[in-house]
């Protein structure tokens, strides 16, 4: 529904009241499991396809650890983004209801979760090709949905969405940095470092 008719979904979301726990347990937790699960299946079956003839195969235990950390990183990103959003709400005249922030993030993250099906075949370039349009779609949903769901003016919403994107950029870059650090310390591909 939200992927086909976002505007109507945002209006419905703003009129309904969700408790944060309800959204987290019923939706976020399960949606957050999808990317690591797809990555686990893809990595054990096909290995990392980095554009070379021979894929990079990892032991199943290492893949399990990477996917578990991926899951926790996504959950941390989700919860921290909601808390940051709630903190920003005071500046931009938006609602401080944590349930609304959780609900908005679930909707905004939906295209990315859908795109993460591509993890079933973990070719890095193909994943990038699929996830970039999904990311643009998510950004579109954030800009359109934020003022409606969080009940603020479109202009304030535009500013708040830009600030949220700034935070999410940083969270994503942090994920890259943390992943790289884990590889260097032995959780990941065998590297000569």
């Amino acid at each position, binding site marked *: 529904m939200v992927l086909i008719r976002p505007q109507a979904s945002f209006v419905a979301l703003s009129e309904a009241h969700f408790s944060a726990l309800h959204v987290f347990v019923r939706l976020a937790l399960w949606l957050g499991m999808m990317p690591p699960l797809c990555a686990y299946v893809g990595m054990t079956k096909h290995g*990392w396809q*980095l*554009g*070379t*003839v*021979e894929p*990079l195969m990892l032991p199943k235990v290492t893949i399990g650890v990477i996917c578990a950390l991926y899951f926790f990183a996504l959950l941390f990103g989700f919860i921290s983004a909601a808390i940051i959003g709630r903190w920003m709400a005071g*500046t*931009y005249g938006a609602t401080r209801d944590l349930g609304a922030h959780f609900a908005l993030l679930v909707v905004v993250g939906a295209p990315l979760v859908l795109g993460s099906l591509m993890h079933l075949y973990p070719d*890095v*370039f193909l994943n*990038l*090709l699929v996830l*970039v349009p999904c*990311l*643009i779609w998510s950004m579109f949903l954030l800009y359109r949905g934020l003022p409606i769901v969080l009940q603020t*003016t479109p*202009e*304030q919403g*535009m*500013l708040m969405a*830009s*600030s949220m*994107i*700034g935070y999410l*950029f*940083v969270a994503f*870059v*942090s994920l*890259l*940095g943390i992943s*790289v*650090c884990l*590889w*260097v*310390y032995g959780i990941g*591909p*065998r*590297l*000569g*470092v």
Partner: protein
Amino acid sequence: MVLAFTIAAVLWSLIGMAAGVYAAAELVWPALNLDFAPLTFGRLRTVHTNAVLFGFAVSALMGTSFYTVQRTCHIRIFAPNLAWTVFFAWQLIVIAGAVSLFMGANAGKEYAELEWPIDIAITVVWVIYGVVFFGTIAIRRIEQIYISNWFFGAFILVVAMLHIVNSLAIPVSAFKSYSLYAGAQDAIVQWWYGHNAVGFLLTGGFLGMMYYFLPKQSERPIWSYRLSVLSFWAFAYSYIWAGPHHLHFSAIPEWVQTLAMVMSLILLAPSWATMINGIMTVSTARQKLREDPGLKLIVLSLAFYGLAMFEGPMMAIRSVNIISHFTEWTIGHVHSGALGWNALITFGCFYFMVPRLVGQPLWSVRLANIHFWLALAGVMLYVLSMWGAGITQGVLWLSLDELGQVRYGFNEILAALQPYYLLRLLGGSAFFVGAILMSINLFMTISGQRTVTVAPPTTSMRSPAPAAGTP
């Protein structure tokens, strides 16, 4: 004169970006160099970096600094003829630099490739620039020196120091010289220069721009003037130490590397303080944001500033750097700063400044809005493709097989990167098309108009400053 600098900056941005797009295309289709030496990647890449850095960025900074210093000091510029000398001499220097690089003359130092005769000319012109800028501050009618002028002042002083120290060389002919420093010392001096050129030119100078144009465009005082002063001194103190993080795992002492890493992490605090100050300044300017395409570009540039200033210190951590160094990730990082921060804030300022300089509204707001989306899409595509390429490259380079041997060959890794290079070319092209649209828009606004001369406000000498944070 400010308009002349603006036009020059726009032209150099087009030339520099065209060279960049062509060089990016050469990485996808190497035959595009046509076996013609000036078009080979090695030469074209330096023309690209010099044109955007010294042609576009410095011309933009000279123009906006002259604009800002006159308005914030309530006085006409000191020695206008010298200011015109700076304009013409600087354009000649950039042209001579581009020609010499196409000919293959190269000092062999990144971002300091120009040979010694041009280096001497840069020094002379830079001193004249400093005389005009600080001369205007010396005769100001406002007691307080507005924060933008502190940033512009630091930019002028530090770039002079960096350029002179790093360019010391022994000439062996008219077009060739060798650095005065040897080995690891040369590397340390070079990256002290290189990193602080990023710091005081691409960050400090542009923060000067931001602190004047953001409050002006949003018609709001700076959120916290005290924070801007505090972050200025913290920025000036911490940036200067961070250069050796470009030399991790090289033949320089380990404590120098560690110091650079720690100072890079500390640098995050003043950088983000500035970003928060900017975002909070604009957070109440709702109406302006709807009407003003330039303001949207500046707000977006702040997001990219925050990203680049977080990513940089993170990449200075040695555990990250061991994977990221020498990969395309660095190129992505540089462009998230250069395109996302420097170019976007400059474009935003030009959309504000040019209509006021000629007393005409912007020719097309719609075209400026299209430019905004093209720029956002272009820079996103560029950065994401380089993140993908960099991580791939780092992992493949370092991967070992069961026997502990390097698993992948150089050719195989290069072939794996080609799709990312194509994606980068698309991103860069989108950004370039946006810049062309802006050029058309600005030239149509200027076309047939004369510059407006504004008399300085009639305040008495050394009158008290306006409310803090109001430029």
